[in-house]
């Protein structure tokens, strides 16, 4: 079993942290995992993305051209990664930042108005967690509890007051997807 997740968006949208959270959760579950950012000139301003590979065996490439799942937090990320998702893979889109439909039909797609949901929760910074929740609900890789646990253990102490909010954001993301699918 191996899954590759790319999380992509603007710098400041919490892309790298969301990826690290997945990584911690996988690690705590005893799985193999790698996290790699795109670094370079684009680091400053512009876009940010990271790739997380989770596996139960020694991981080869930490970068992939065809990921199992993508979270696209804005339009450029959707444009860049839509075609790359593996057949049958998962694409989670931040509907709030994207003004078009997804074209592919051979993959699972979750359009989540993550900014709106985050603002409903009272904290814009929760956008990434909403989308992460939506991903976990679609990708059979880690139980959401594992990520919640990772959050508790690896969120810096000074942010612990935000723990409940973070969890709630993930749940909302997951639920939104469930609702959308059942709808």
């Amino acid at each position, binding site marked *: 079993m191996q899954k590759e997740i790319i999380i992509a968006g603007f710098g400041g949208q919490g892309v790298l942290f969301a990826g690290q959270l997945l*990584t911690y959760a996988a690690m705590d579950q005893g799985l*193999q995992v790698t*996290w*790699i*950012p795109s670094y370079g000139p684009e680091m400053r301003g512009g876009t940010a993305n990271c790739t997380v590979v989770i596996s139960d065996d020694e991981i*080869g*490439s*930490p*970068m*992939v051209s065809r990921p199992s799942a993508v979270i696209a937090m804005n339009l450029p990320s959707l444009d860049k990664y839509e075609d790359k998702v593996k057949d049958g893979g998962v694409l989670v889109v931040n509907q709030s930042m994207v003004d078009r439909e997804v074209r592919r039909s051979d993959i699972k797609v979750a359009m989540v108005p993550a900014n709106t949901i985050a603002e409903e929760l009272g904290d814009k910074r929760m956008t990434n967690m909403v989308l992460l929740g939506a991903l976990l609900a679609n990708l059979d890789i880690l139980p959401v509890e594992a990520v919640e646990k990772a959050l508790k253990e690896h969120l810096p102490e000074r942010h612990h007051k935000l723990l409940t909010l973070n969890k709630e954001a993930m749940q909302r993301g997951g639920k939104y997807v469930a609702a959308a699918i059942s709808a």
Partner: protein
Amino acid sequence: MAKELMKGNVAIAEAAVRAGLNAYFGYPITPQTELLEYLSSRMPELGRTFLQAESELGAVNMVYGAACTGARVMSSSSSPGTSLMMEGISYIAGTELPVVIVDVMRGGPGLGNIAPAQADYNQIVHGGGHGDYHPIVLAPANIQEAIDLTYGAFDLAEKYRSLVVILADGSLGQMMEPAELPEMKPAIMRTPDWATYGSEGRKKRILSSIYLDPPEQEKTNFRLEHRWQEIKANEVQYKEYFLEDADYAVVGFGTSGRIALSAVRAARAKGIKIGLFRPVSLAPYPEKELFELSKRLKGLLVVEMNAGQMLEDVLNITRRQIPVEFYGRMGGILPMPEEIEAEIDLLVNEPTAANGHPRDRWLARFGKKN
């Protein structure tokens, strides 16, 4: 000990600290800067020496000086910075000092870029400095290996009074992976019988790399060559994957080696009997092992993040007795597993003669687009 999630640069730094690193001297350069930044707080916290040098020239000569005293010392840099260390590296080799240098390669030549590359293989393995000398070169492919190799590098360096280079690339420096850290040692300051730390209670000592009299210099060169024979006999490291029953193999080191593993798995899944040979010590190179392996194979694919530098060594070692193909990405681009898979298919389905040069074929296939 429990696993921790660490960035490659930080993992290497902490491994060095735990190995008893006494002093670090370095200069910032992407993509190794986190290593220096981490040590800028970690070393003083432990009461050890951290100093940001005025340049890589400064840094290499500071480790040169510090190593003379018997202290465990390290520097680190990336491609252009490493080039500036070549004179110092040759002096360190000529003075027979134990020094560890971490080189996190980026795209070149020139200023190039800060993305991962492996184009300094020749510079590090075959002597970018002047004169005959042989550093021990270790190429980790994952963070655990980076930690383990760094931790062991100091013992190796001291055992052979040799330079040890940890040769990584930007992606290993920047990625995170869970890994276990080794036991913590105090800062190590030895007083071996060659070190210069003040002559109290003994005769004075001199450490230098001058032998104005050619026969004396030749003696030194022979000493270095003999030591290298010993290192070749004892310190070869490599990893094998799926090679027991293999008809084909990919050869790759560091990051390109680990990426190739994914391609090899995918090819195996399609029923191709292929394995991966990943040299861990690039110097000494696992020559015998690769040669023996090649005798059992129908073909080899060499994958690198350069224009085929290790390729020449593989050709030399395997004596061009079986078909060898090459796949390289350059300039900061990582080869993707799918690309390597396609190359494996080619190797298996359209084998070429042992004649002709794999690099020429690669350039014909890919270069023309550029």
